[in-house]
């Protein structure tokens, strides 16, 4: 059904790329302002209306659009023009596998809120992300500028390293949920488990309150260590502070996009923010239960509402609720990233590499083994 | 498969225990290089063999519990060699089989073995030739026990051959135990090589038997399987060149039997391969007692009895065996009369007694052979150990000319030694009397051509046996002590480790005979089924058809034997105690025969000239200097190397241009060639 697919794609573009990304720029400014005890962006106004500075993204876009697009001498023109696209496109198409909601039945028509509900969704995202590396590398090389070159080198090293780790950190989640399909992961987290269930399982105690102390069956509760490591790795993959050594203003001016201006710089800029959203959506889906409402499963919601109104209406409402939940979680994760970005200073290059190879990699492998042991123990 | 018998997992432990201990010794002195304290090592070994003896007793009890006609215990451990398919499939199991025959054997082996182990503790005590000597010694002893037990327990020819080779190896190791003395090493290798000749015959026999059986579609190496399908190959013949005697066709069973008997000759020191046994006395005395008197040398007899069904079907081969045995007995006895080394005398007497056993086996008296085997094991072990005690007392002096008059000092040894001498000489009612009697009767009663001659030879040998044994005893214990003074002053009985086994063995040398009390005597003292050993062995041993011999005749023959023994004894008494000048006078006047005897008929020299020297010359001059050095090394190895070097140095090197892409080019060319060949 191409129509449905087109609708989904348009939706993604409208909401995620065109809608959310600019807002994030505003969020970032505001948050930095709050954290630095400033007022923050509020000057752009349209006839006195500032909307708390919400007009700034628009102003930015206009500025970037109208700037001159400079290609330095001796640069490899084709590459130079190509690389921002290489950087931005993967970030955007990664949304294809993110489930914004579950699968719903309206009469005989089913609604699946995933653009491409493929069985190997997470692999797809990793593959796409690995392609994204070229954007920065090529940008750094093609600008014919030593600082850019250094930035590109750093970017390539950092991204290769952290891809490995990022892949390994989520293996634990695969093992828990037994799938790579993101929608299945979200569905699997649409339940809850009893915190003290083990008392009954292994000690045979069945006290009443055991059934009432519950946690949502989220990845973060199964894989807390995995969550932290994955967050670290994927943020490093995004090259934002505190992992922004490829840009490293204080060392190599602006790194790989030193020689870019206008909308091409804007593309790098946007790609970073889109990647923030992707990261948020991904972590929300894998670790925070995706669209699932905590402790309130889909059947409960639909059942509860349909007891008052019709099933169709209930399902529609459920879709909205789920989507809202998902967006809430995404926003929350975005906020967390902002928090980190404005709290932590930039790591040194060797520190980043050590973090990757000497801490995250061994820890993630240990995590895999521990998970395997626990699974064997629990599932027999 | 014929009825496999009753399963019993006990059997495997009987050989395994000594093996484990041997392995422990080997590891601790070979790999860890940390020898165990001698006393500990000795005790461990003795414990292993004693335990094996206990297990054997238990297994024996289990065997007796079974009905008489199906007394077989088997323990199938695993398939050792599996090869081939269909009508020529060889499947050699490592599986042990305890039937009456092997039961008797393992009882003897483990019992005498443990006695001798204990004895060795005392005997090897003062052996300080190297630090880990004692442990090495016991390692070999246990290994030997293991091999011997495998030999007798193995239920197929291949496993038997394993034990056969194993005992050969251990005998080699133990003869050359004091290898620092090159003569001992020489004796060891001599024993080994002579045994190899016999083993060759054994192997050929196995091959022939297996080939014949697979020809009739029943390939088998296990005794049960062979016996089951044996009738199929009895009538087979093989063609031989017409000029050969009894040509142009020989019965296969005869050939097989002779091949096996060649093996037996090697192992059991029969003419023509007996020459290694006297030299084997170079080993420590307990070794001579265990290996070269009691157990290993009887392996041939055991094998002939084990294959008795085959020999019963091969009268010609049996005749050869009987005559060889008889002649060996006579020759060895005559040589023994003129030897001065106490162990040499015993060695030749062993050869002669083995000849007796083969005489019995050849005449179809397999039970008698086994009977004599058992009794001989006891009294010959006793004699050797006694000799060992004497040697200890004489500070490793073996020449009887330098002994004498030990009667006063060796207060226990003298008695046990006397018992042994009487037993071997065959005085009633000691064990040797009955067994030797059985053999003589079997010889008399058999259908072997010239069986009366065989009987006569046996009788004469009995007399000579008595003579040289008493000669030995007189020379050792009576008369004046001819030792040097300082030796003479510290002659005394050795310690308990040495003496107690002597006591036990003496006891058995006296009474073992009653295990196989011939029915004649049984009737006299009115015992039904008195010959329990023979009855026990009947199910496994074939019976050659014999003349009927009524009891009065048997009694007469027995008395003749006693008379011969008495005559020999008297002669010995006369010439070595009463008139000590006689031997010297004889040696002086009949110097020719005497020197012939003294020098063992110059057999060794003969072999040296006829066989050894030519072979050595051939190997040295032709095989080594020409074939090996010139052709194989010169042309084959170095020639190839030089040729390739020249070729590479002058032509091939230019292929290595150092340009990567030229290599790539040649690769591509090769790929193109291959692909175009494949896609042609």
């Amino acid at each position, binding site marked *: 059904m191409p129509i449905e697919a087109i609708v989904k794609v348009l939706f993604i573009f409208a909401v995620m790329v065109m809608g959310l990304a600019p807002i994030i720029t505003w969020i970032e400014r505001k948050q930095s302002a709050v954290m630095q005890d400033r007022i923050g962006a509020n000057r752009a106004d349209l006839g006195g209306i500032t909307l708390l500075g919400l007009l700034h993204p628009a102003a930015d876009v206009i500025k970037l659009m109208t700037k001159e697009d400079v290609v330095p001498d001796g640069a490899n023109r084709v590459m130079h023009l190509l690389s921002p696209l290489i950087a931005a496109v993967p970030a955007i198409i990664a949304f294809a596998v993110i489930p914004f909601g579950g699968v719903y039945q309206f009469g005989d028509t089913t609604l699946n809120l995933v653009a491409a509900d493929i069985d190997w969704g997470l*692999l797809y995202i990793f593959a796409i992300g*690995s*392609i994204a590396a070229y954007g920065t590398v090529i940008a750094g090389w093609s600008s014919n500028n030593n600082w850019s070159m250094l930035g590109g*080198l750093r970017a390539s090293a950092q991204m*290769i390293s952290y891809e490995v780790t990022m892949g390994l950190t989520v293996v634990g989640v695969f093992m828990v949920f037994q799938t*790579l399909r993101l929608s299945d992961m979200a569905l699997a987290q649409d339940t809850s488990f009893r915190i003290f269930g083990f008392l009954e399982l292994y000690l045979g105690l069945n006290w009443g309150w055991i059934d009432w102390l519950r946690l949502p069956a989220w990845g973060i509760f199964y894989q807390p260590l995995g969550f932290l490591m994955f967050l670290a790795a994927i943020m490093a993959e995004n090259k934002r502070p505190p992992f922004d050594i490829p840009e490293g203003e204080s060392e190599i001016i602006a790194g790989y996009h030193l020689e870019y201006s206008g909308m091409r710089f804007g593309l790098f800029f946007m790609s970073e923010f889109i990647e923030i959203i992707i990261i948020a959506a991904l972590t929300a889906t894998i670790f925070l239960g995706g669209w699932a409402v905590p402790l309130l499963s889909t059947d409960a919601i639909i059942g509860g509402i349909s007891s008052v109104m019709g099933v169709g209406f209930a399902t529609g409402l459920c879709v909205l609720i789920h989507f809202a939940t998902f967006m809430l979680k995404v926003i929350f994760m975005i906020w967390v990233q902002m928090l980190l970005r404005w709290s932590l200073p930039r790591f040194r290059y060797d520190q980043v590499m050590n973090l990757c190879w000497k801490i995250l990699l061994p820890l993630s492998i240990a995590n895999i083994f521990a998970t395997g042991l626990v699974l064997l123990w629990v599932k027999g | 498969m014929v009825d496999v018998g009753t399963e019993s997992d006990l059997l495997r432990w009987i050989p395994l225990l000594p093996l484990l201990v041997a392995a422990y010794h080997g590891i601790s002195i070979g790999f860890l290089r940390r020898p165990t304290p001698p006393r500990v090592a000795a005790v461990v070994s003795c414990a292993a063999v004693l335990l094996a003896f206990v297990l054997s007793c238990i297994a024996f009890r289990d065997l007796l519990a079974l009905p008489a006609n199906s007394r077989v215990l088997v323990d199938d451990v695993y398939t050792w060699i599996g090869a081939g398919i269909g009508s020529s499939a060889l499947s050699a199991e490592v599986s042990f089989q305890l039937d009456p025959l092997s039961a008797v054997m393992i009882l003897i082996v483990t019992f005498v073995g443990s006695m001798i182990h204990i004895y060795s503790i005392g005997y090897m005590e003062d052996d300080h030739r190297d630090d880990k000597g004692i442990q090495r010694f016991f390692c070999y002893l246990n290994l030997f026990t293991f091999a011997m037990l495998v030999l007798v327990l193995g239920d197929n020819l291949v496993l038997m051959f394993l034990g056969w080779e194993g005992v050969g190896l251990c005998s080699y190791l133990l003869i050359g135990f004091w290898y620092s003395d090159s003569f001992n090493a020489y004796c060891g290798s001599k024993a080994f090589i002579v045994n190899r000749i016999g083993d060759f015959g054994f192997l050929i026999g196995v091959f022939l038997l297996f080939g014949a059986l697979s020809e009739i579609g029943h390939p088998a190496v296990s005794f049960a399987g062979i016996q089951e399908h044996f009738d199929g190959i009895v009538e087979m013949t093989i063609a031989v060149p017409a000029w050969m005697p009894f040509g142009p066709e020989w019965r296969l069973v005869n050939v097989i039997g002779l091949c096996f008997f060649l093996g037996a000759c090697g192992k059991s020191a029969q003419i023509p391969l007996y020459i290694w046994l006297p030299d084997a006395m170079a080993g420590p005395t307990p070794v001579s007692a265990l290996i070269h008197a009691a157990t290993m040398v009887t392996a041939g007899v055991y094998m002939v009895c084990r294959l008795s069904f085959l020999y019963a079907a091969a009268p010609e081969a049996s005749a050869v065996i009987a005559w060889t045995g008889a002649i060996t007995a006579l020759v060895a006895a005559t040589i023994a009369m003129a030897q001065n080394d106490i162990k040499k005398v015993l060695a030749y007497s062993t050869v002669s007694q083995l000849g007796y056993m083969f005489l019995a086996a050849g005449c179809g008296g397999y039970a008698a052979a086994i009977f004599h085997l058992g009794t001989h094991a006891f009294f010959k072990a006793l004699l050797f150990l006694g000799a060992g005690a004497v040697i200890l007392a004489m500070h490793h002096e073996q020449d009887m000319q330098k002994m004498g008059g030990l009667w006063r000092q060796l207060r226990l040894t003298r008695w046990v030694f006397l018992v042994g001498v009487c037993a071997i000489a065959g005085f009633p009612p000691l064990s040797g009397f009955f067994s030797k009697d059985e053999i003589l009767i079997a010889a008399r009663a058999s259908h072997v051509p010239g069986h009366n001659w065989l009987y006569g030879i046996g009788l004469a040998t009995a007399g000579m046996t008595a003579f040289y044994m008493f000669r030995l005893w007189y020379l050792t214990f009576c008369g004046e002590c001819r030792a040097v003074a300082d030796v003479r002053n510290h002659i005394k009985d050795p310690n308990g480790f040495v003496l107690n086994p002597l006591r036990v063995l003496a006891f058995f040398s006296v009474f073992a005979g009653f295990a196989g009390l011939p029915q004649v005597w049984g009737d006299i003292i009115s015992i039904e089924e008195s010959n329990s050993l023979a009855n026990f062995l009947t199910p496994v041993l074939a019976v050659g058809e014999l003349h009927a011999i009524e009891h009065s005749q048997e009694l007469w023959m027995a008395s003749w034997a006693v008379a011969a023994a008495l005559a020999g004894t008297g002669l010995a008494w006369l010439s070595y105690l009463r008139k000590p000048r006689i031997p010297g006078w004889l040696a002086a006047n009949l110097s020719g025969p005497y020197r012939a005897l003294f020098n063992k008929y110059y057999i060794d020299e003969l072999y040296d000239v006829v066989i050894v020297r030519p072979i050595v010359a051939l190997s040295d001059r032709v095989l080594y200097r020409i074939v090996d050095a010139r052709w194989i090394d010169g042309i084959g190895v170095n020639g190839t190397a030089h040729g390739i070097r020249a070729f590479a140095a002058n032509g091939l090197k230019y292929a290595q241009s150092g340009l990567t892409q030229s290599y790539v080019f040649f690769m591509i060319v090769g790929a*193109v060639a291959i692909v175009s060949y494949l896609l042609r």
Partner: protein
Amino acid sequence: MTVETILFYIFGSLAVVSALGMVLNIRNAVASAMSLVVTMVSLGAIYLLLEAYLVAAIQIMVYGGAIVVLFLFVVMLLNLSTDEFPPGRQRLIKLAFVIAGVTILAQVLIALGRDPLLAAQPQTVPEGFGGYRQLGIALYTDYVLLVEMASLLLLAAIVGALILAKRKID
């Protein structure tokens, strides 16, 4: 002429063109690397069309994401923008190479034309043909030895690369 077929021809020609670009571009190593990336990615797409999903993902992740980036890294590290080697003296050899290569190609193509097996194609593939579950199970049951060997090989490669690339072993 289904959509898949059209896509296949598009990606196939893309792969061929970019491969040729990689080989023939003698001025610019980075450009060669980039065209290699294009080849890899289009091959990954072709794997997708062949329904070998895991292989496709791995292809893009490892080749696209790691190997070629490594090439780029080295090229940039050595800063070999162009390679001005002295003009080769072996025009003839190169000609021979081309001939040989084309011969192989021709042979293979002829063989393909002859091969009846290729004509008979299964219209459908078995359940989970390229899925990660089946491959993973196969890898860790039937081919576990292979996996172990590969891991040993990679370990050796890591150590070797380290030894080779370090200036001095300290």
